[in-house]
């Protein structure tokens, strides 16, 4: 069902403009860094939304693609030279590897039922984590390594603006994608895969396309993440990254694109403040428990997330008198 409520482009432009001038008016380093972090995770969460929200696939291995991007960028900047050219090249390399990888994995596993797929992605990404731990000559394992970022990013502001630009581009690209005929088929797959199949769509192809796009975008987020830290270790491949993406998407609202961005903001801010509180209240060292509980409650009681719930309320108000009852077609009517 198409909702009339769409995020108004005008409002979006105002928000983006405000965010773009933010570092020029505020000299808070903390905020610049925090916002950069939020933007990066927004990109990751949006890519996850393509899977969970638009195609109805639960992957527990999304960190794999994020890590791929992070390692591609870190290793290339470290081994070749820390220039902008190499940086962009490394993003492309990460995306290509992530694309090929997600294509292969998708082809092999997406025909399986949701349970198996979730399990298999979890196991494959676990395998990559072990691989990264073991292949120390390349990754230096859990210790990780620092590297020099291109000169251009010495100024945090430049990096901030680049990430913001990436976020905006990815958002419009993905929005274009989900509203395209292809994206519509994905939604049909989510709603009822069997029926979509019987309409003659090779649903596997569409699911693979969705998983490749999600993988490629996640890799971009990984590349940016590596630069933001100027450091990489195996934590970029852990389940925690996947969980962050999952949580942001669910809290913000699955299948809305804008939701995951809001989710990323909420989670990153909450994480920031809660771990700040831990100094005074040790229980907050385990802040992830609160997230776990909120997440469980959200899945049970709030499955539409922030944006989904607002949209639904809006849609309901507009269609108050609409009776939602689909009678099975009657033969008499069909004959008429």
């Amino acid at each position, binding site marked *: 069902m198409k909702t009339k409520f769409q995020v108004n482009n005008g409002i979006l432009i105002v928000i983006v403009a405000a965010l773009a001038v933010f570092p020029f008016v505020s000299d808070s380093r903390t905020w610049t860094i925090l916002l950069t972090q939020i933007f990066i995770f927004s990109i990751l969460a949006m890519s996850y939304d393509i899977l969970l929200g638009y195609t109805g696939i639960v992957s527990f291995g999304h960190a794999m693609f994020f890590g791929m991007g992070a390692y591609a960028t870190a290793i290339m900047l470290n081994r070749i030279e820390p220039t902008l050219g190499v940086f962009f090249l490394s993003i492309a390399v990460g995306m290509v590897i992530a694309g090929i990888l997600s294509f292969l994995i998708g082809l092999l596993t997406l025909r399986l039922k949701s349970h198996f797929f979730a399990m298999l992605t979890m196991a494959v990404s676990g395998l990559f984590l072990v691989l990264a731990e073991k292949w120390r000559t390349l990754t230096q394992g859990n210790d990780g390594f620092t590297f020099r970022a291109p000169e251009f990013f010495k100024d945090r502001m430049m990096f901030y603006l680049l990430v913001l630009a990436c976020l905006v581009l990815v958002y419009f690209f993905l929005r274009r994608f989900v509203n395209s005929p292809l994206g519509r088929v994905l939604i049909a797959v989510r709603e009822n895969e069997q029926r979509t199949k019987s309409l003659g769509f090779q649903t596997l192809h569409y699911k693979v396309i969705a998983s490749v796009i999600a993988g490629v975008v996640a890799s971009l987020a990984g590349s940016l993440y590596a630069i933001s830290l100027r450091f990489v270790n195996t934590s970029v491949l852990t389940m925690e990254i996947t969980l962050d993406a999952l949580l942001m998407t669910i809290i913000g609202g699955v299948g809305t694109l804008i939701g995951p961005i809001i989710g990323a903001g909420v989670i990153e801010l909450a994480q920031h403040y809660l771990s700040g509180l831990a100094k005074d209240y040790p229980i907050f060292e385990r802040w992830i428990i609160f997230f776990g509980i909120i997440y469980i409650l959200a899945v049970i009681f709030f499955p539409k997330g922030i944006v989904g719930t607002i949209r639904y309320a809006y849609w309901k108000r507009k269609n108050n008198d609409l009776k*939602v*009852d*689909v*009678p*099975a077609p*009657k*033969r*008499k009517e069909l004959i008429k």
Partner: protein
Amino acid sequence: MSILLKVDNIHTHIGQYHILQGVSFEAKEGEVSVLLGRNGAGKTTTLKTIMGLTPATSGTVTFLNEGITKNATHHIASNGIGYVPEDQGIFGALTVEENLKVAMRKEDDAARERQEYVLELFPDLKKYWKKEGGHLSGGQKQMLSMARAFINDSKLLLIDEPSKGLAPVVIEKVMEAIVEMKKQTTIILVEQNFIMASRIGDTYTLIDDGETVQSGQMSELVQNEELKRQYLGIG
């Protein structure tokens, strides 16, 4: 004769689809009531709604003067309604013996007596006592399923298309068994095979497009060529 089960204007949704749109009928004690209608008319859904497997969204089902519309399936079954689904619902990896054992709620003398009775009724089951349900023939599965529903002193049996996919000789056997069971219990039968339905049915209810079209005595329907042609495509 008293009314055992009364279905009053039930509506049932499956997913977003409104399948039953007003089905009503009564089953009198000791009779065989037949639900007739084309494929997809809503006969199976009616049985499932009585059983609580696809609960009605509105309307009422009354059994033994007690509303059971919203009851859980296992309550409905233990209240005394036995169900023989269209696919017979045999547990394929369990033997005939085990299939009956799962069904038997109380293992007392009365239950054992009934077991003896059904085994007399269906001697094949005794012959294949230790055989896995999945390896039985279609007719044997049908008999096992009926025996299983009957074994618990069921006051009412819902039997969904017992003749489906069976050879004429076997259909004859199944029919004889239903006639025999009728002496002890009340039966609601869904049947496409009109010859069989008209021979063992006392009353009929015609369902079309999820609605009751007409109910009455089976003998009247046999005479009514117009009704038969319009809704059953025969005559």
